[in-house]
């Protein structure tokens, strides 16, 4: 990463203009962030308490907490990860280790993943409703929601996992090749352990993406804010709860902000934890 600054060599009017424009743009970029985060902290923190995390919502969410919503969220995410991680990892391994690089299959799958990544989440929600809820008979349920989310985060997870697999240095691969190790020995014992921190991070980011999603779940895992009794019950996730409170519940803004604060904290921690793991495992990785 060669990063170069342009040093002030001459001062012309146009230079001043460019620099002013840059500063203005930076401010314009950070102001909404400041406003949103400020609102989030100020309005969210006032309604937040430990009790809020465990109580059931009452009066449509104006009072009580988000206990069942948290549980539903965890279950939907669990279903999502249970599908995404094995399938996505297998796909990444297939793309990176088995299919011929730059071959027709790899190119086709890449295009398909790009297209899938570009699909609006509401369209995926429609698909999930049509396919999982109706065609497969799961109904509006946590299972259907989790599977829909899995479709949504799959391209992201596959791409990040591929990147993680590619961090395995070429000379380590060459060593495995020269020793004529079986492909699966090389992958299971050498490639995956080296890529593990990256795979962790990929999981964290995929989870963050799934946690943030609302539109794909509106029609698939539903609005019901009760404690789900099984994976085939509907369940309301945090993001949908925020949507419902802010749109449909007079006086629901406070709890909506509190829920948003919880959601953002969760997001930051799932995308931050893998970074810590990576720090711990660095000393084991191959010096590159």
């Amino acid at each position, binding site marked *: 990463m060669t990063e170069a600054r342009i040093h002030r060599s001459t001062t012309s009017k146009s230079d001043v203009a460019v620099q002013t424009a840059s500063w203005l743009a930076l401010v314009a970029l950070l102001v909404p962030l400041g406003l949103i985060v400020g609102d989030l902290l100020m309005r969210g923190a006032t309604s937040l308490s430990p009790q809020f995390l465990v109580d059931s919502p009452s009066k449509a969410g104006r009072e009580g907490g988000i206990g069942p919503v948290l549980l539903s969220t965890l279950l939907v995410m669990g279903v999502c990860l249970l599908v995404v991680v094995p399938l996505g990892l297998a796909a990444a391994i297939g793309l990176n280790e088995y299919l011929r690089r730059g071959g027709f299959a790899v190119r086709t799958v890449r295009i398909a993943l790009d297209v899938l990544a570009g699909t609006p989440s509401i369209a995926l929600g429609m698909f999930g409703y049509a396919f999982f809820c109706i065609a497969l008979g799961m109904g509006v349920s946590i299972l259907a929601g989790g599977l829909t989310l899995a479709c949504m985060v799959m391209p992201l997870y596959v791409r990040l996992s591929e990147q993680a697999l590619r961090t395995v240095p070429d000379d380590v691969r060459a060593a495995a*090749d020269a*020793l*004529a*190790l079986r492909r699966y020995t090389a992958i299971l014992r050498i490639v995956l352990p080296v890529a593990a921190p990256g795979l962790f991070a990929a999981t964290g980011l995929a989870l963050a993406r799934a946690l943030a999603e609302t539109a794909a779940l509106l029609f698939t895992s539903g609005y019901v804010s009760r404690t789900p009794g099984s994976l085939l019950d509907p369940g309301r996730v945090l993001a949908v709860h925020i949507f419902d409170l802010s749109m449909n519940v007079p006086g629901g803004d406070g709890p909506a902000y509190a829920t948003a604060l919880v959601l953002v904290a969760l997001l930051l921690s799932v995308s931050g934890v893998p970074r810590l793991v990576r720090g711990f495992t660095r000393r*084991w990785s191959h010096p590159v």
Partner: protein
Amino acid sequence: MSQIDNRARALLPWCPMEKTAPCCTPRTYLEVTDLTVKYKNTTALRHVSIEIPRGCVTAIVGPSGCGKSTLLHVINRMTDAVAGCDVRGSVRLAGAEVLGKGVDLRMLRRRVGLIFQRPNPLPLSIAENVLLPLRDHGFTGREERASILERVLHEVGLWDEVAQRLNAPAATLSGGQQQRLCIARCLALLPEVILFDEPCSALDPIAAEIIEQLICRLRNRYTVVIVTHNLAQARRVADFTAVLWNREGASSLVEFGKTRHIFERPTQGLTSLYVGGVTG
């Protein structure tokens, strides 16, 4: 009689050169015939033929970019993994064709080990670097593996240095130690031929000397091919030397023969210029 000069002999007094019958009456073990290697747009090697004798150390020298490494990589088919690499001609190992379609690559690579320029231990512990390949190749006995581990580490002179920390990551070893570990894990698979691809060029002089001595100790028991751009090294360790040169956009063999002949009485003008340090 000796293929190395006196200065080198003084440096490596334990080289069992004098007693080596095979080099006096060398039998060809690895036979490269009319080998042409093309990458997408370029020709790396053109019509190269060399007969590499059994139990000897054969050096391949030449200026950089003359296809020395390519030649090595063809021998144990590492070029298979390179997209757009087209290999023609024949490489025979103990009379059997290596380049054919039905060749068992696993068996070939076990019989023909390859040591890389940069030490590349697997990102595992020191012991696992030897044990994992053994397990993968079907050495099922735990005791057997342990004894092989100890034997090969002794053989590369690493045992005393690492016996106390066999479970430490291989990455914690020094560069020279890592390279010896790579050689050890290669020896563990009982190869017949060992290919060295500039094994010392990434190491400091002391570590390089240890590796050189090690290569000398491998003579007779293994057929060794070493690619090097270091002429003095070739002169010190090799029984035979091949000179490759890039001419008209592709490399070909200039001269091949006993090291002494190559360095003292080359038949080709280009060779004498190269070994004399005039060109290259």
